[in-house]
């Protein structure tokens, strides 16, 4: 089995060179594929959340619609699609309509760059990590616009909370993410997965990986507005927060984006710290690694992502919500210093090569000089 990753885009690029119409076929296929993937995944996540919540709470959850309630999310989706769509009087109509689309788009743009398996990645960008971090920020624009345009003070309050919260926690998420980038020596998501061929960063990095993992889980939970950081829509405080005035299809977009963001965070955690689709390899133990390879990489990825999703759901159904100033204090006074310290510690580890199974391609090799520069590498 070849684990050499190859994104859909790179495979198609070869085909496009031969047959130009393949470009259109690639576009159409990826649009349909991503749409189907997103829909099915959203329904599964919604069903899983309701069922898991129910079992945490000593009840059975959806049970009557389809066997064990499996069609519950389908019924909800169809109902939401056909529900009346209200734009309140006094709302900024254009922004009101645009906001859920932006929120949804940010999430979909993240998903196309995620390596779900060695051959299951739509686009494999060189700067995948930066790209995901950047487009994930689109979601907050959607939330801010939605709250602003709704002409409702509760919405506005929710949106402002979300804005402050997501932008703050983005910092910690970045710092945690940089640790994995440092160890892997690349910004390419598939490269990061490959760099974990001899072990996942969470255990290979002498503590720095664990700290970064925990940081990223906390900051990620905050970025997707889930309990204990669900201040943006905190039901008991702001009725429904930024989406108070949304109904029908547009609310469904927010709702779906919220659940798929859960997957995006879980997938990022998996990719950066849990080896992505990489089986549990340990160094050069060939027998062990071969045994681990028996499970296909897609299953490895799904299993790890599901475990992280379950962890986040566990948070949600256990913890109460933080207060808005406590939330900020946690970020700026606790997580951020820890993140910085951890980053420097990790940098030290990388430079000294003092971690399990250091790769040969560590940044000790000199970088190639850019074209046109003097060959001795000195700046002109």
């Amino acid at each position, binding site marked *: 089995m070849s684990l050499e990753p190859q994104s859909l885009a790179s495979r198609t690029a070869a085909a496009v060179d031969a047959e130009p119409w393949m470009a259109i076929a690639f576009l159409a296929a990826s649009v349909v594929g991503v749409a189907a993937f997103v829909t099915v995944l959203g329904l599964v996540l919604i069903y899983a959340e309701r069922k898991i919540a*129910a079992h945490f709470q000593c009840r059975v959850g*959806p049970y009557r619609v389809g066997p064990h*309630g499996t069609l519950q999310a389908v019924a*909800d989706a169809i109902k939401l*699609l*056909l529900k009346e769509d209200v734009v309140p009087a006094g709302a900024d109509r254009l922004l009101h309509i645009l906001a859920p689309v932006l929120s949804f788009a940010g999430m979909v743009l993240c998903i196309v760059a995620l390596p779900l398996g060695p051959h299951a990645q739509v686009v494999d960008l060189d700067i995948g990590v930066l790209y995901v971090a950047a487009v994930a920020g689109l979601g907050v624009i959607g939330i801010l616009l939605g709250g602003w345009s709704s002409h409702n003070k509760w919405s506005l309050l929710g949106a402002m909370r979300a804005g402050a919260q997501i932008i703050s926690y983005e910092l910690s998420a970045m710092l945690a993410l940089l640790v994995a980038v440092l160890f892997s020596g690349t910004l390419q998501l598939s490269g990061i997965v490959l760099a974990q061929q001899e072990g996942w960063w969470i255990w290979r990095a002498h503590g720095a990986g664990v700290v970064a993992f925990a940081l990223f889980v906390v900051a990620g939970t905050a970025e997707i507005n889930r309990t204990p950081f669900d201040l943006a829509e905190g039901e008991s405080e702001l009725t429904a927060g930024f989406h108070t005035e949304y109904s029908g299809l547009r609310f469904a977009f927010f709702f779906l984006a919220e659940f798929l963001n859960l997957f995006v965070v879980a997938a990022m955690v998996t990719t950066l710290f849990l080896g992505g689709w990489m089986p549990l390899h340990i160094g050069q133990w060939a027998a062990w690694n071969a045994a681990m390879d028996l499970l296909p990489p897609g299953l490895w990825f799904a299993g790890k992502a599901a475990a992280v999703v379950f962890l986040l759901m566990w948070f949600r159904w256990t913890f109460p919500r933080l207060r808005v100033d406590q939330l900020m204090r946690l970020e700026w006074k606790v997580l951020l210093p820890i993140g910085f310290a951890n980053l420097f510690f990790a940098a030290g580890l990388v430079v000294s090569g003092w971690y399990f199974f250091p790769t040969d391609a560590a940044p000790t090799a000199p970088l190639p000089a850019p074209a046109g520069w003097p060959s001795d590498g000195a700046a002109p």
Partner: protein
Amino acid sequence: MGLVTDHLPGALLPLPGGGALLTAIDQVVNWSRANSLWPLTFGTSCCAIEVMMATGAARHDLARFGAEVARPSPRQADLLIIAGTIVKKMAPRLRTLWEQMAEPRYVIATGSCAISGGPFLYHSYTTIRGADEVIPVDVYVPGCPPRPEALLYGLLTLQKMIREGSTLARPGQVRRPVLAALPDGMTLDDVRAEIAALVQETATVDRKAAAAVGAAFAAQDRV
């Protein structure tokens, strides 16, 4: 309602087989609406504890029917459960809440207060005599307050009403709740016959039996 639902019947019906297709679509749509009744978190009085909280809680678990997603915003809710007394000051707010809900929306009135004013019917200067004086109600669940099981039955009745009720071609057509509430295999005529039999039975007096019952009561009183 939506762009699609408004224009779909007009576009489909002229086509060959369009009617059958429309019926199939109707069934799917009504199935989804019936099985995804998200209630509004709204309770005014005692009924809120029984029908909103106890029914949603672990033992009775409204989630089994897909109705546990309580939305605090009326825009996202499908079902308004009027749980408790409605007074004059609240009536305009209730109306506003109902108007803010997006179509299709359904209303269940629970408890005597929301049905008729209940214990506060007489000598009260504020109590509205039934929430249906303010907004249209689909299903009434009696009780003071109703047991959670009663609300579940009300919910199932509403689901039946939705499944058998309005179609895309004829929106707004509502199946009457009395018919929807009947168990399977029973028609309104059966009920009428049963009532007639009961009336007949109570109207006929068996003098001998009545005398025996009276004697038994008299004996009890002496003891």
